[in-house]
Each structure stands twice: as C-alpha cells, then as structure tokens.
C-alpha cells in the first residue's frame, strides 16, 4: 500500500497536488488509485517504486497516445513518502467495468461475445501495426468504458516490440504454457491470446494449462454445438494458419454473419412450421366439423 485514503500527493517536478480517493487495482509493477486534482477533476494514478517499469509504461502510453482505446496520459513525476521515493504517472480515469465484471454480471449472448472479441482483435491489430505486441491480454485488462460506450485497454506495461521475448503474461493466454509455440512477441502470439480469450468466454470459465490439454479444451468447445465455422477459425488460430489480428478480425466477421444468417434461417423455419401447424389445425377442424 503506497497511499492511504485522502492522502495528498505532491509531484516533485510539476508541483501539482493530487488527493487519493480510493485504490482501483494493483498490477505487476505498482498500484492504481483514483485521485482528484485541485480543480476536483478525477484521474487515475499509477504508482510504484520501480523507476524503469513506471517510466517504460508511461513511454508506451505516450507512443500509443493518439489511439482512442488506450487511456490518455498526462504527467510523469515522483513523490516522497517516509523517506522513500515513489514514481507515478497520471492518466485518464476510465469509468466502467472490466470484461471480467461484465461476464459475471451480465448474460452475454454468443453474438455479443463474438462482437467483443472482434473489437479486441481490431484494437490489437492497431497496436501490432505500430510494431508492438500487447502480451498480457486478459479479462482484467479489457475495460468497458461506460461513458463513451467503447472498449479500452488498460495496463500497457506489457507492450513489447515485435520479435522480442515476452516478459509479462498470464499463463492462461500464454502460447508457451500450452506447449503451442515459443514465448516470443510475434503476431501469432497475439492471435493465440485472443482466441483463448474467446474460447474461455464461450465455455463460461477460465481454462488452465496446468490441468488441461489444448486438444481437450477444443473438444469441449466442439460439444457445445456452435457453428462449424467457429471451430475452423479456432483451429486456424491454434495451428498458426490465422497468423495476424487482421485475418482474425475478418474471420470473426464471417462467423458473426454466418451465425446471424443461421439464426435467421431458424426463425424463418420456425415461422413456417408454426404456420403449417395452424393450417393443419384449421383443416382438421373443418374436416371433422
């Protein structure tokens, strides 16, 4: 715990003061707090003692700054408490809930889930296009921005240049933990993480590489009677034939359309059956009358 409630923090370099309202969360390199400035405006403050990690994450946010799906970032500064120096940066406070919360509170349909993952694929494609891989994709890092109604990514500490070694990851989404490839920040590493996110959402539970094999997980998914296109897409991501977020985004679009067309056909068939049954009932009544 770096900061207590209503504690005032004064930036060593900017001279600005912030009041801590409450803790929002903790990541690998520090803690995040909701703070207000002197004008009463709310911000999120990430703080920690590791100078390199805090500075690096600030740098990543600045690099990806013009993109609307990452939090806007303001100043990078230090403060001192009990003779210890803490480093922090101030960023936009995103009011909303994480995908983890959304899944536990709301009943999402198959279509909703595909749509969410499709947006995630698009966001990650833009990061990939800038030459980086977001290696620590997980439910907790995907935020639904209530105010703007969009999906945002938080915790940019894992942004890694394409081709480098992955240093921050969560085992469930990590290709290497599933013995499905190296722990290298390449485009298919990104695709793998997204498809694991989708599979976990569709199965309505976290999956554990320590306890299960990938083939068994796919088998379980197969028993859920989703459209065939979905399995082909999942397999394509796992075997590396769908190797970048752009291709995945397109395939997700196809699966969405097929499933919608499938659902439409079901509605039409149901209506025809209902109509025929009615007709039959009327006929029977007329014959026996």
């Amino acid at each position, binding site marked *: 715990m770096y900061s207590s409630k209503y504690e005032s923090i004064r930036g060593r370099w900017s001279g600005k003061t912030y009041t801590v309202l409450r803790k929002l969360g903790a990541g690998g390199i520090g803690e995040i707090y909701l703070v207000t400035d002197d004008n009463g405006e709310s911000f999120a403050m990430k703080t920690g003692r590791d100078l*390199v990690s805090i500075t690096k994450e*600030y*740098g990543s946010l600045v690099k990806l700054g013009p993109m609307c799906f990452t939090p806007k970032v303001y100043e990078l500064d*230090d403060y001192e408490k009990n003779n210890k*120096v803490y480093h922090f940066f101030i960023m936009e406070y995103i009011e909303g809930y994480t995908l983890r919360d959304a899944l536990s509170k709301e009943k999402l349909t198959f279509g909703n889930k595909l749509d969410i993952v499709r947006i995630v694929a698009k966001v990650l494609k833009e990061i990939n296009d800038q030459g980086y891989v977001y290696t620590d994709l997980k439910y907790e890092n995907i935020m639904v921005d209530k105010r703007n109604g969009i999906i945002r990514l938080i915790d940019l500490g894992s942004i890694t240049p394409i081709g480098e070694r992955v240093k921050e990851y969560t085992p469930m989404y990590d290709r*290497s933990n599933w013995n499905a490839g190296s722990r290298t920040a390449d485009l298919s590493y990104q695709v793998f993480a997204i498809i694991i996110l989708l599979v976990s959402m569709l199965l309505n539970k976290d999956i554990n590489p320590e306890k299960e094999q990938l083939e068994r997980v796919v088998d379980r998914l197969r028993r859920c009677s989703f459209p065939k296109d979905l399995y082909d897409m999942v397999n394509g991501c796992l075997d590396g034939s769908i190797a970048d977020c752009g291709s995945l985004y397109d395939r997700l679009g196809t699966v969405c359309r097929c499933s919608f067309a499938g659902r439409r056909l079901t509605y039409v068939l149901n209506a025809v059956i209902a109509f025929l049954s009615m007709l039959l009932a009327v006929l029977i009544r007329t014959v026996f009358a």
Partner: protein
Amino acid sequence: MTTLIESGEIKQIIVVTDGRSNTGISPVEAAKRAFDAGITVSTIGVINIRNSSDEKDIEEVEEIAKAGGGLCDYTHIEDLSRTIQNLTHKTAQRTIEQIVSRQLKVIIGEEIENLEPKSRLKIVDFIENYGENINLKCIVVLDTSGSMRDRLSIAKRSVVELLESLQGRKGSSSIAVIAYPGEEAGSSIICGFTNEIDTLRQKLEALRSGGGTPTGPAILKACEMLYQYYEVCGTDISEGFEALQHYV
C-alpha cells in the same frame, strides 16, 4: 561492481525459499558479501499455506534482497515459474540501472532519480535494451528443506522454464543450481553453469528434499561458484574477488 562492466556480464543469485534460515552464517550477511563482490542477490518467498509464514520469515526474505542489492517477491508455488522469470529479468534491469546511475553521476553529477522524469525515457530504453543484450549468469539457490518436499517438482520445472525463457534473450544466458541443505557445507551444487535445457533437466532429476534451512552458507557457495567460473575463464575478476576474499 566494476568487474561486471569489464566482463560485460551480469551475475545474479536468485534465492527461492519458504522459511527462515536456521543454520550457518546469517543469509543477510552472506547477501551483503555477495553484493560487495559485484553479485546481485534477489529473493522469492514461496507462501506456505499449511504453516502460515510468520512476520520474521517475511522480514528475512526482504532483508536478504535489500542487503544483496536485488529485489524481493512472494508467490504461491503454482505461480513460481512466472515469478522467477519476472524477478530474474527485473534483477538484471535493476543491476544495469544501478551501474548506469553511477556512471551518470560520474559524467553529469546526477543520478537517474534526480533527472527530470521525461528525460529518463531514453535512459530507460537503453537499460531495457542493454538488459536483453548483455550476457547473464544466474545461480538459482533452491531451498529443498523438509517444508518444500511437496513442491519440489514444480520448483524444478520452474527452473527449467527459466532457462527456456532466458534463451529468448539476445545475449547469452546460463544457469546453475545450488540446493540447500546439501551434503557438504550445508549445500550442494546440483548443476554447474549450463545453457542446455536437457542437461539442466537431467541434473535436476537427482534433486531430493529434506533437512534444515542453511540459507546463508548456500548464498556464499553461489558466490564462490561464480568467481571460480571467472577464474577458469581467465576473466579479470581481481577486484570483485578481493572483495569476496575480504569477507570469506
């Protein structure tokens, strides 16, 4: 520390323990000796659910890292693999940060913490980049005392996965493993420096658990091992070794 820059290599010790040391030299003193000899010591406290760790255990794990100029982290055994990789990476970064900071002080009279935050960005990029390119020698000092018995297979696998992960670095990386308690002087060298996964895996198979917790003597053994290695390789290690000799 000068030796590190000269040899272009980072030397670090990662201590993995789930309890307080109970025999031999104080591990905090041993870590201080290591640090004076240019070796960074970091610690991982494995949280023991059955016999909940008391505050003194936590204090000791933190004190060892503080004296060794390294970092400290806690983890449940299931997450040891990721923690050990993360801590090894962060320790290498920390070591470079300390060197860069000292060099900055010599050149411009200021340490990195006293630079305006935004001007640190380029230095941080350099530290990251240098950390991936410099050669790394890492000794994992593994507590195999009685309380670690049920967790040893996960600990072994975590060490193998550490080497796998380090192989993705641009610089060369090798790992050695010391287990304590061991047969001689409280600890045993389970595996000498290697960069081969199969060798490491094979040697780790022989590892068994049991006995007391002589953390201090095990850290000193790791220091000796690092310096013997440099002697064999003919690298100039005089300064660091003298510092070590001064204490041993």
